């Protein structure tokens, strides 16, 4: 069992859990993820790592309550435990001094991006971050991103904070203004696809962190397969980060929808959670 040592509500329907996992805390690097299972009947789902504390032996993960499993997870409290947690999985982000790096984060994707931005800054990069959300309340990790970045821009779909519009609008402006050596994007697939489109025109190397459906997370099933540069890759072992300009985003988005009907059925049965 893996004990929850802290729980926070970061934004409406966005929760943060800090979990006791000493082996993992020692090993995990920015960009990696974990697979969890709540209990006997539970499914295995991947979650990104948003925080590490080697001394305490804990890792933190931040998630949006969308389906049955994340809703159930959001109902757990400090002192509760989940039955399974495996990782760190996937390859860490490649951290080097690239020069000027733009980190684009959307929704809960901002949380794992924070670790990456911090590592990039520590490596000597100029880090410019753009974070976005539907509305002001859904923005997370603003202070943390401020600290990890030389400049921080905000975009909200409804204009309640920062730029009224998409993160890609801000990115366009930045690119017009200055030389950008690399872009990293973590967030909803549509956002990553949009970022890839913008940077492709300017030939700026762009890395995205993909979030397909997964089962084992160790390369055994191929549920997480994506097409990158015309080849099939397993996101859990070959990724999760790939060259954005080579990713077949349409295919990924199609595969992500495989179980929408079943997800609804499961959610309806989720009686334990009252929100």
């Amino acid at each position: 069992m893996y004990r929850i040592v802290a729980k926070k509500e970061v934004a409406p329907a966005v929760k943060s859990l800090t979990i006791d996992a000493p082996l993992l805390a020692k090993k995990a690097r920015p960009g990696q993820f974990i697979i969890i299972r709540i209990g006997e009947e539970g499914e295995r789902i991947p979650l990104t790592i948003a925080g590490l504390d080697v001394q305490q032996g804990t890792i933190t993960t931040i998630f949006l309550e969308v389906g049955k499993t994340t809703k159930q997870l959001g109902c757990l409290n400090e002192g509760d435990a989940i039955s399974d947690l495996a990782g760190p999985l996937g390859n860490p982000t490649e951290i080097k001094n690239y020069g000027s790096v733009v980190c684009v984060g959307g929704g809960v994707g901002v949380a794992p991006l924070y670790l990456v931005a911090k590592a990039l800054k520590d490596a000597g990069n100029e880090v410019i971050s753009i974070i976005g959300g539907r509305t002001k309340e859904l923005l997370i990790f603003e202070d943390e991103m401020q600290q990890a970045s030389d400049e921080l821009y905000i975009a909200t779909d409804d204009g309640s904070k920062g730029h009224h519009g998409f993160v890609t609008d801000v990115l366009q402006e930045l690119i017009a203004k200055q030389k950008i050596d690399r872009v990293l994007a973590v967030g909803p697939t549509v956002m990553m696809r949009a970022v890839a489109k913008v940077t492709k025109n300017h030939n700026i190397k762009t890395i995205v962190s993909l979030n397909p459906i997964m089962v084992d997370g160790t390369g055994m099933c191929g549920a997480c397969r994506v097409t990158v540069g015309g080849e099939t890759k397993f996101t859990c072992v070959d990724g999760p980060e790939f060259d954005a300009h080579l990713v077949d985003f349409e295919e990924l988005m199609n595969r992500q929808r495989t179980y929408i009907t079943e997800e609804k059925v499961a959610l309806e049965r989720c009686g334990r959670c009252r929100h």
Partner: protein
Amino acid sequence: MPSLKKQPMSEQEGDKRIHNFDEVALGYTPEQAITEAKRCLQCAKPGCTQGCPVGIEIPAFIRCIADEDFEGAIRVIKKRNNLPAICGRVCPYENQCEKFCVLGKKGEPEGIGRLERFVADYERKKGIQIPEKAEATDKRIAIVGSGPAGLTVAADLAKLGHDVVIYEALHESGGVLIYGIPEFRLPKDVVKAEIEYVKQLGVDIQTNVVIGKTISIDELREEFDAIFIGTGAGLPHFMNIPGENLCGIYSANEFLIRTNLMRAYKFPEYDTPIKVGKRVAVIGAGNVAMDSARVALRLGAEDVRIVYRRSEKEMPARAEETAHAKEEGIKFEFLTNPIRMAGENGWVKQLECIRMKLGEPDESGRRKPIPIEGSEFALDVDTVVVAIGQKPNPLIAKMTKGLRITEKGAVWVDENGRTSIEGVFAGGDITTGAATVIEAMGAGKKAARAIHEHISR
């Protein structure tokens, strides 16, 4: 003169069993077992024992059954085999022990597999006995992977008094026995009971530990006196044809992991979903393909077809599995090779195929399939399962410097299961590619002996 035929074993009827996941073969009654045991000729030089990869003294255990000493029988088996209820269900006896049985020359061979299953089940129902162990040593061994190879090494070394820890990447131990082979062929309670036996021997099983990620082989070497790698052949092959990433197309591994390990057949009581339409095509004709096809039927498919590029004669599946599949109404498209998967709204709708004919034998000795020009046709499908084989798991190889790998991606070992790294051993599917439970156990036994020697120096 013994009867020419084996005692038949009762089974769930074909039309009933396709609606449930309960075990198909029901096992012998004590009377049937005794009658079958009495057929054995008790050869002075038994071929059967030589045909057994773990060397069970077969005539001796069968003699015990004939004498109605079932406990004696299980003691004989367990001297060599730690997982008899599993082997008694999934071993390809026809290629091993039973192949060498003298009775098989005139009639059917002795039902060795069925008898092994009978005594193992008898013991499980009565309560499994834990044997005496050697005095505790101060040696520690780490085992990577809890499939039949890892469990065998663990049990053998624990019996010798060593301190053994198994690290398993998944949340449940058992390897293919748990995630791959379906409930109706190998009930998970049977697997769990045999794993419980290994634990009772003092083996510590740590799940959710991915070696190479959570802990590296080098870190294990610092803490343990020896290491055994038994990570299996878990990497699924795909066809690499257009349309393969449409929704509704599964690797056999994903299809079986969802169903067996995650219990998707009990969705929504269990959270993991699986989607099976009315028409299912399973590509490949090995045991994994038969299992996938039979699972598809039980998940509600109406028309399940095996699509195989060679003919019935070349099928790698065990005859018994193919027979079961046929009884259940699985259809076969022999000499047929898929060339494209076509979709609608992102979901697979058709499997485009070409008919094949057989040419000259290839390096595997089987006649090579050649496409017949102009014979293209399409099968309407809702679901496709790709069951064309698995490769050795590449993770540890990738993450461990100095570990020699063969051209086929397997971990290289010498005849005693030693890898290229001192103190690191390996066996099972990770060294051979996808093979059998009993071969993995045989490799495990050999490695356990080599490890014992290595650490007792």
